[in-house]
């Protein structure tokens, strides 16, 4: 019975997904019919161009440049954010001092800092990575810090009653308690890091998807603009759906 319930649930989810995709395509087509070729290309034209563009040797170096920059930025965001967040979470005083600063920095439009980043890192990969990491590191740090602060003190008292060593307490109580919240932070950090890298590429780079996009805007190449947006949309949606699934799986028990 449980199996058939699960099967029904799965087919229901597939139906919902197909319906969502159909709605998006219909809305896209409708928008195309209203505004026309000047602003957007139709779903069919875009798909056709994407199939042609993606494997081409003109496009692939840009994709690779973006992925390299994004991968590096993500690594720095995640490692730096988690490390910073855990430190601030466990060291109460540092956390109290740093929290308002991080909050202010988080709400600041980071684009204002881009000239400074360019002065420090110069044009190229490192500036893009730095700008992407700047976007991602703060939310990851804030979520990680709050994960540590949110540990139920009763769980730590239970650890003492059960006479667990510090290592055992971290492994069996602290880690499972904080991981779900940290994963939520990683999910938020993922999209913001991607945003940072793309903005970085748009304003000061000769490579990458962001560069292609700004170039297409300058040339008013509507087909290229729509196709790039489509590819980015696909990438962001698929990865964020995967991260969201992991996130939900971890949170369902809490």
């Amino acid at each position, binding site marked *: 019975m449980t199996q058939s319930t699960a099967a029904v649930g799965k087919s229901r989810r597939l139906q919902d997904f197909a319906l969502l995709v159909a709605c998006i395509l219909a809305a896209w087509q409708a928008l195309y019919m209203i505004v026309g070729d000047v602003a957007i290309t139709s779903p069919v034209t875009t798909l056709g161009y994407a199939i042609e563009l993606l494997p081409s040797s003109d496009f692939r170096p840009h994709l690779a440049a973006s992925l390299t920059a994004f991968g590096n930025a993500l690594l720095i965001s995640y490692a730096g954010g988690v490390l910073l967040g855990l430190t601030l979470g466990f060291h109460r005083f540092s956390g109290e001092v740093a929290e308002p600063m991080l909050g202010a920095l988080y709400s600041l439009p980071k684009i204002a800092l881009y000239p400074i980043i360019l002065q420090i890192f110069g044009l190229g990969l490192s500036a893009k990575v730095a700008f992407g990491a700047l976007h991602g590191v703060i939310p990851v740090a804030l979520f990680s810090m709050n994960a540590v602060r949110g540990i*139920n003190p*009763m*769980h730590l*008292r*239970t650890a*003492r*009653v*059960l*006479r*667990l060593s510090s290592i*055992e307490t971290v492994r*069996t*109580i602290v880690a*499972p*308690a904080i991981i*779900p919240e940290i994963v939520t932070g990683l999910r938020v950090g993922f999209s913001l890091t991607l945003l940072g890298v793309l903005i970085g590429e748009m304003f000061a780079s000769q490579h990458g998807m962001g560069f292609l996009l700004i170039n297409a805007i300058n040339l008013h190449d509507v087909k290229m603009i729509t196709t790039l947006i489509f590819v980015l949309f696909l990438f962001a949606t698929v990865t964020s759906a995967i991260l969201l699934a992991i996130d939900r799986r971890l949170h*369902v*028990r*809490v």
Partner: protein
Amino acid sequence: MTLVREQGSPGSSGPSARPRELAPRSGPATVGASKLHAQLTGVTKLFPAPSGENPVHALGPIDMAVERGEFFAIVGPSGCGKSTLLDILAGLAAPTDGTVVFENKPISGAVPPGIGVVFQEDASFPWLTVWDNVAFGLRRAGLERGETTKRVEHWLRFMGLADFARAHPAHLSGGMRQRVCIARTLVLEPRMILLDEPFGALDQQTRLLMGDELLRLWRATGATVVLITHAIDEACMLADRVGVMTARPGRFADVAVTRWPGDRDSRIVSDPSFGQLTGRVWSILRDESIKAIGHAEGDIGGRSP
């Protein structure tokens, strides 16, 4: 079940007819050396205050002795240091002054083996199933798998959780989660179980039924039980002796001996002597509670009976 009364007669009136024998007002309830399970001697707790102010005198000096296999309940007004007393007895907090001895060994800085603690707040691990919650301590202790399974299944059945073994605590009611915490403690077979207002968050009916379960497991394990509660009826219904604490700094104002039979259950609340016992405890606790909330007695509504 029969409510065997060892002394006193329910029909008569006046203080001399009280069915309960109350220990001297200020003295500790002492027990024979061979039966002694845990003892607090001259225990005092002061909490440091912000610089320039005097430290807060939370507790004591307190003398208390608990017999092996005894059910001892502690009631007291809010903020009288009940939970601090339990923390000290468990080894979770160190007293500022005085000594704590459990099974003839002094407790210093850590919870000794043989003591189990159930807290007021839900302390079940939300990331583990009910089964894994209960097995948690046994696995950490490195118990052999077959024995772990046997013990966990026994206590899940005992606590009525067998059907929920694979559920996560988030899917259970507050009462059931507290039962998970109790099972997680009992599975380790502690020789002394300390409970800090374990049913405080539950409704009255559930509390009475949980009280019955507590009596059942007390009889089944033969463990010593120390129960902290703010509910007078709960203390009087469950315990062999009820320690009544004063307002802060908490001391024992009285220790009432209930003399209930070992096979008692929650139906004891309909016994006439139960009312007399709770009345007696309340008459002490009322004055202390008034002190604790900082009112003059007249403000509350006349003198206590």
